[in-house]
């Protein structure tokens, strides 16, 4: 963890005239799990969508390899997208495609690999996320947890440098959520991936977070490690953790 892989500087996001994110700045280091945390409606998902340019920031910079993602042209954006993977909150699998086809899509579209190789890559990724047996099923035939795993397999199919995850544990039981967290740790340690995870699951944060960015009403009110967060004097951070401790820790 020596140099930042993603730098965010003075980012501001708006919906119409309403300011959602105000002057957000932080660095994400290589090969760390960076957690964006906050209560409901604080702007976590909006921040994530700005980082992956599904929304265009109204002000500020998102720097990846010295390029500002907020303003780059479509060719460079394509390059950026080739370096990242995204796990959406509900998986966002294509419902008319089998799990195998869903995971294979980026390979079919962006590579000229023969089918035999594509098949091997896909099966390896499905094995990594432990849903090899579901390769030929449709997303609707899977449970929520399995859909998340399949979506994760698709997100990491091109071995991205950064994996963005939006509320990965939402709607999952604690055991499935924990196994998903273990998978994130595996991706970080074994594949040297950087993970940026939006969540408000305290148990999950404790297990996986290297750094935390705490949002409240569109402002970054805390940035630091988990230990620093637990000892923080910021009232909202203190309250947030103290309310959850009894339940999760």
């Amino acid at each position, binding site marked *: 963890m020596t140099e930042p892989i993603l730098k965010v500087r003075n980012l501001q996001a708006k919906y119409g005239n309403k300011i959602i994110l105000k002057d957000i700045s932080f660095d994400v280091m290589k090969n760390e799990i960076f957690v964006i945390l906050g209560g409901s409606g604080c702007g976590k998902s909006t921040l994530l969508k700005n980082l992956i340019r599904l929304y265009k920031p109204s002000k500020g910079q998102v720097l990846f390899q010295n390029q500002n993602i907020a303003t780059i042209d479509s060719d460079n954006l394509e390059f950026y997208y080739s370096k990242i993977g995204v796990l*959406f909150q*509900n998986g966002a699998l294509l*419902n008319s495609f089998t799990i195998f086809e869903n995971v294979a899509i980026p390979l079919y579209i*962006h590579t000229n690999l023969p089918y035999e190789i594509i098949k091997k890559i896909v099966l390896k990724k499905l094995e990594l996320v432990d849903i090899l047996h579901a390769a030929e099923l449709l997303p609707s035939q899977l449970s929520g947890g399995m859909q998340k795993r399949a979506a994760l397999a698709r997100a990491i199919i091109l071995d991205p440098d950064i994996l963005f995850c939006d509320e990965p544990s939402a709607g999952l039981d604690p055991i499935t959520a924990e196994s998903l967290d273990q998978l994130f740790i595996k991706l970080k340690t074994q594949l040297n991936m950087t993970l940026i995870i939006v969540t408000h699951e305290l148990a999950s944060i404790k297990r996986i977070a290297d750094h935390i960015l705490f949002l409240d009403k569109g402002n970054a009110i805390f940035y630091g490690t988990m230990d620093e967060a637990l000892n923080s004097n910021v009232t909202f951070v203190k309250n947030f953790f103290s309310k959850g401790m009894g339940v999760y820790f």
Partner: protein
Amino acid sequence: MSNLIIEKNKIIMPDKITISHISNIYNEFLKNLSQLNTKKIIIDFNKTNQLDSAGVALIDQIIEILNNKNIQYKTENIAPSVKNIIDTFSSQKLKAIKPEYETKSDIITKIYNIYENFKSNIIFFTIILIDMIYWSFFAIIGKGQHKKDSITQQLILIGYNAVPIIGLMSLLVGLILALQSAAQLRQFGANIYIVDLIGIAMVREMGPLMTAIMMAGRSGSAFASEIATMIVTDEIDALKVMSINPIRFVLVPKFLAITIAMPLLITVSDFLGILGGFFIGILYLNIPTTAFLNRLVEILILSDITIGIFKGICFSWIIVTVGSYFGLKVKGGAQGVGKVTTASVVTSIFLVILADSIFSLIFYFG
């Protein structure tokens, strides 16, 4: 309990404004509203000592009515306990609010906004159509960004699966058209002209139009709901972040499939429509089969068929673009999907009929 009293410039609120009383109070207010003959009034809460959330809703409603009538008001004599309840539940600010008159500039702004909205919708619609045509060329030369068999799948869904219903509908249209005309033609001994009527009407008008209307209901709605659902479930966003152009991946196969399927379906429709007319011709008007067929060959010229096919292709582009447009504009969840699906079908059918009218004028006078 006291009643609500309306004087010339004053509404005196009753002592109890609670859920069990508001119905009477509201009726009283509506009944005596006409007695207010000034544009500035006072709402007096001097008597009021009991108020609940339903009562606050009633006050809000009264204020809304006053605002709509451009009557300015201010409140008086609100007890602190009553004010607390109002402050907790009211969506109105109980003070002398100056009603917002719709000034001329507001109306102009509204018209301008409608114009801007219309303009941006037209631009968006055009961009989708141009994008689909542009990326279809890449797909045709083998540089598509879609699943290999997706065009075939769409052809089966849009084309093959629609053959029975379009065939049956066209047969019935041909039968009805011929039957309605037969009685008139018989009176003048012009039986053989049933062939002209059915042949030209089916090939130039009814075939393309009825097929397009059926396709708008059947496929246009499917396009809109599928794309809308993909947006609602983040599937379109997922494609974007995989550097996959949603237009190339999702829309181009549909565009190509409907462009191929439409002329084929129109041919089926023309054939079966004429067949319907043929049955009436030989069974009801006693036209010999050979005479019917000879007359058909004689009157149908190639341009009739090509005009019908050309119109059909234009209609198919309208259907796929409208479906995609509404699908991509979805807002909200399941309800939003339902709304855009309905809007897509209605708009497609309207635009198809509008385009058909324009074509008719062009080909008639051209």
